């Protein structure tokens, strides 16, 4: 901004009085001279007054510039101006908010190429997009993830527009950047809550779906079973081969009915019902529900179950949920690894009061940074995950008086394990 210094004289000043008293000259000559002088004087007055008006205008303009500059300095958005000359994108102005948002000092910003200074766009693709937009004389508008000088991430709403001179030539660009990190966080929180709700709804819908499916399938199963059993009676003591086939039909019908029964049991919403349970049976029952998925993914579940384990007190469905969740996670961890097939489920006696259940995979393992967050609500490393599984599993195990943990295996993959107390009355026997 240029400073205009004008020394202003009083407005009403005149250089010569209009009618000066002088000795008489020859009238004509004098008159001519006087007229000339007067004319010149009047001209000067006019000019002077014009000059004064100009100075006034300039003063008003100066005040306006002052106000605008102050406004830019005071704005809470980051405002900056880039020189459009030579395609160097030199920053010629950056207000204090710009410095605050980016964390860089004025001297680290001014005179530097907007795209090259340390706080510039780390993403070259976006830089290129901005440059291209500006070179076409258009305005840029976008949300970017950026880094402050101290490395802190922030979300920035950036708008850059060209400034043109009277001939329409772009001389500068003016940019405004706003820190929208808090806004973004709020949006994400809302998104999370929506996802949670959707999930609960989905589970409800699934339970409903399974229930109606179970009903529809049970009807033909009833008919098939009855037909087969009627035929068995009709062929009594005859046609042993047909009898055998009929028995296979009966068996498979009952197997299908059992699958439905379990499925319905698993999806039923119920209060925890603590009963005496054999953890090995819980595990086998759960695996039988997921085995088609395991086979489809070309994986194998290997059991290393200690058959001599004492009973535990627990809710069968809830413990099945935990086991199912751990197996599903392990399968997903192994999915991308073509050379890992085996998932081991191991049960053992940990000490006199507790049993240990381990689910060990040979998948991608858990990144060290994720270890702590693993069991928190909504933490997920999967693109389509909801981050509910492990947190629900942990609270179930804790409600059973045990605890659920995870660790990476020394070779590869991870092991999730939970410890459960054995039935109290059994402890008297030892």
């Amino acid at each position, binding site marked *: 901004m240029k400073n205009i210094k004008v020394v202003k004289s009083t407005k009403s000043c005149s250089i010569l009085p209009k009618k000066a008293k002088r000795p008489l000259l020859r009238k004509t000559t004098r008159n001519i001279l006087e007229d000339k002088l007067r004319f010149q004087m009047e001209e000067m007055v006019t000019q002077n007054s014009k000059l004064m008006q100009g100075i006034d205008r300039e003063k008003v303009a100066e005040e306006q510039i002052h106000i605008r500059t102050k406004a830019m300095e005071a704005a809470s958005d980051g405002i900056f101006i880039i020189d459009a000359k030579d395609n160097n994108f030199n920053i010629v102005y950056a207000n204090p908010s710009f410095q605050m948002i980016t964390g860089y000092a004025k001297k680290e910003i001014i005179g530097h190429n907007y795209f090259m200074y340390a706080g510039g766009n780390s993403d070259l693709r976006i830089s290129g997009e901005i440059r291209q937009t500006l070179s076409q004389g258009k305005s840029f508008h976008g949300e970017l993830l950026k880094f402050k000088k101290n490395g802190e991430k922030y979300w920035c709403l950036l708008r850059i527009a060209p400034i043109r001179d009277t001939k329409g030539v772009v001389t500068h660009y003016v940019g405004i950047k706003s820190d929208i990190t808090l806004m973004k966080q709020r949006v994400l929180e809302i998104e999370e809550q929506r996802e949670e709700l959707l999930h609960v709804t989905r589970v409800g819908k699934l339970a409903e779906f399974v229930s109606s499916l179970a009903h529809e399938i049970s*009807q033909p199963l009833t*008919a098939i079973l009855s*037909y087969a*059993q009627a035929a068995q009676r009709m062929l009594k003591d005859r046609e042993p081969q047909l009898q055998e086939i009929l028995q296979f039909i009966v068996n498979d019908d009952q197997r299908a009915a059992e699958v439905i029964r379990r499925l319905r049991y698993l999806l039923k919403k119920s209060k925890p019902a603590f009963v005496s349970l054999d953890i090995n049976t819980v595990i086998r029952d759960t695996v039988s529900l997921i085995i088609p998925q395991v086979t489809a993914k070309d994986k194998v579940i290997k059991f290393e179950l200690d058959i001599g384990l004492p009973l535990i007190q627990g809710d069968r469905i809830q413990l099945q949920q935990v086991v199912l969740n751990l197996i599903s996670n392990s399968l997903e961890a192994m999915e991308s690894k073509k050379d890992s097939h085996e998932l081991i489920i191991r049960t053992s006696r940990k000490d006199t009061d507790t049993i240990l259940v381990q689910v060990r995979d040979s998948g991608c393992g858990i990144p060290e940074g994720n270890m702590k967050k693993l069991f928190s609500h909504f933490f997920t490393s999967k693109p389509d995950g909801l981050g509910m599984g492990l947190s629900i599993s942990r609270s179930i195990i804790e409600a059973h008086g045990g605890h659920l943990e995870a660790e990476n295996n020394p070779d590869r993959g991870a092991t999730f394990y939970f410890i459960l107390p054995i039935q109290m009355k059994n402890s008297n026997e030892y």
Partner: protein
Amino acid sequence: MPSLIYIVDDDESVCRALKILLSSYDFEVKTFNSAQKFFDSVANDDPGCLLLDIHMPGLDGWEVQKKILNSGSKRPVIFISAEKQDNAADRALKVGAVGFLQKPVNGQTLVDLINDAKN
């Protein structure tokens, strides 16, 4: 004379299959695919055990059982349902039914229950 069994189930296939099965046990079986049809053709004091589905359009199984009880009939009723209802078995006994069987129902189990009901 063979014992009479009535089956009320909206699923035609279930009716036919159970009829064939129970006929092989020498029962005489009559099937109806709605409660209304049953009430229209069978009098309250006609002898015979009723195998009753629960989930049906029109009158459902519970309503049918209530109607039979209210009419003063002593007809034995066995509920057979594809639905998994909590405490359905308890509820069936509480409303005066002989028993509750979950579909698909095993032939021998059903016949044993029918024979119990007759005695």
